[in-house]
């Protein structure tokens, strides 16, 4: 039950994109087409779960016992950067189709604040390893969902006559605002 709550909270109620504002850059950048939105979402979810495991081990097994918490930021960011590189290499070797599907999105993930945000939040909230994994899964699912919905709306938006100054990023932001408003409806759920 506890795990289910963590999952739902990360995926819907405290959606990473729409209520915590983490990962806005890919949200605005890659939400043009539903197909690329799904690929990006999958890549992010995959890296998020791995990050949750690795950063949990790093923080609670290495940093906390040796009282090195002040090294949290540099060590997390380096671990995430090397993890992404490593994942990219492994996928390239193991599965070419998957590599082609995720390919260009993987390097972008390094500077995605949702990933580092996830690592920081799970150390701040002192989750257990299992809880962290579920948290990563939920956050990834929520991110994918927000990206997919946004991409669907933007595909329709292409066909509409938006006032010229609002074309591009501004109208996307306003759409995201309305979407966030809709997601607020879930706030009472937990």
């Amino acid at each position, binding site marked *: 039950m506890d795990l289910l709550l963590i999952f739902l909270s990360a995926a819907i109620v405290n959606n990473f994109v729409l209520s915590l504002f*983490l990962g806005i850059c890919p949200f605005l950048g890659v939400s043009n087409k539903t197909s690329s939105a799904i690929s990006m979402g999958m890549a992010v979810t995959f890296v998020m779960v791995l990050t949750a495991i690795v950063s949990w081990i790093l923080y609670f097994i290495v940093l906390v016992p040796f009282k090195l918490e002040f090294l949290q930021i540099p060590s997390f960011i380096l671990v995430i950067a090397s993890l992404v590189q490593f994942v990219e290499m492994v996928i390239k070797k193991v599965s070419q189709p998957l590599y082609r599907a995720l390919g260009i999105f993987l390097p972008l993930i390094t*500077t995605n604040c949702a990933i580092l945000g996830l690592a920081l939040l799970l150390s701040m909230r002192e989750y257990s390893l299992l809880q962290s994994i579920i948290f990563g899964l939920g956050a990834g699912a929520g991110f994918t969902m927000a990206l997919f919905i946004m991409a669907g709306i933007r595909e329709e938006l292409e066909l509409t006559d938006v*006032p010229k100054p609002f074309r591009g*990023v*501004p109208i996307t*932001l*306003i759409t995201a*605002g309305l979407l966030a408003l809709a997601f607020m409806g879930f706030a009472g759920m937990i």
Partner: protein
Amino acid sequence: MKANKTLGYEYIKGFWETNPVLKQVLGMCPTLAVTVSVMNGLAMALATTFVLVFSSLLISSIRKLIPNQVRIAAFIVVIATFVTIADLVMKAQFPDLSKALGPFVPLIVVNCIILGRAEAFASKNSPFRSFLDALGNGTGFLIVLVVMGGIRELIGSRTLLGYQILPNGFEPWLIMILPAGAFLTLGLLMGLANFYVDKKKRSEREELIQKYRKSQNDVEVKGQEA
């Protein structure tokens, strides 16, 4: 004289011409997340500017020592160092602010503005120029954050910097301090900025056309006289 002018330009251009948020669309996450009030926006922008200025300065001083292949990793380590300093100082000196900003102070490390300036400017220019560029971009970021925070605080909770401005009769718009309000405010702000730029461009173009027509007319008149 000319050198002075361009140095000034390195500083000024970040305010509006290449404003990191409105024009380059960088650093959106903190812009949206922390601008619930002017104070939060100001604190966030100052912390970011601190990191931006010092990491640009350091990166540009050691730019010739960094091998090209590992430059991104080197930049990130430099940036992470300054972010840690900012985070710890804030936790020690302003615990309330640090709590209000939550994970967004450590998240400065992945703020695209900083890595963007390091990659696009500091790694190619002299320390002094990078310093000015970083300061200008930081100020541009500060302007947007304070304006956003001002609008949202004024309409969302009737206050500015904690002092009540609007009378009690004004019903605060709760939506402005909720996440949705952040998206809407920034979207409208960017739309306005684009509108202004378009208008300016159009009037400049019309002026040019008129000048051209006038000169053509002059030539014709002269031709007829001859």
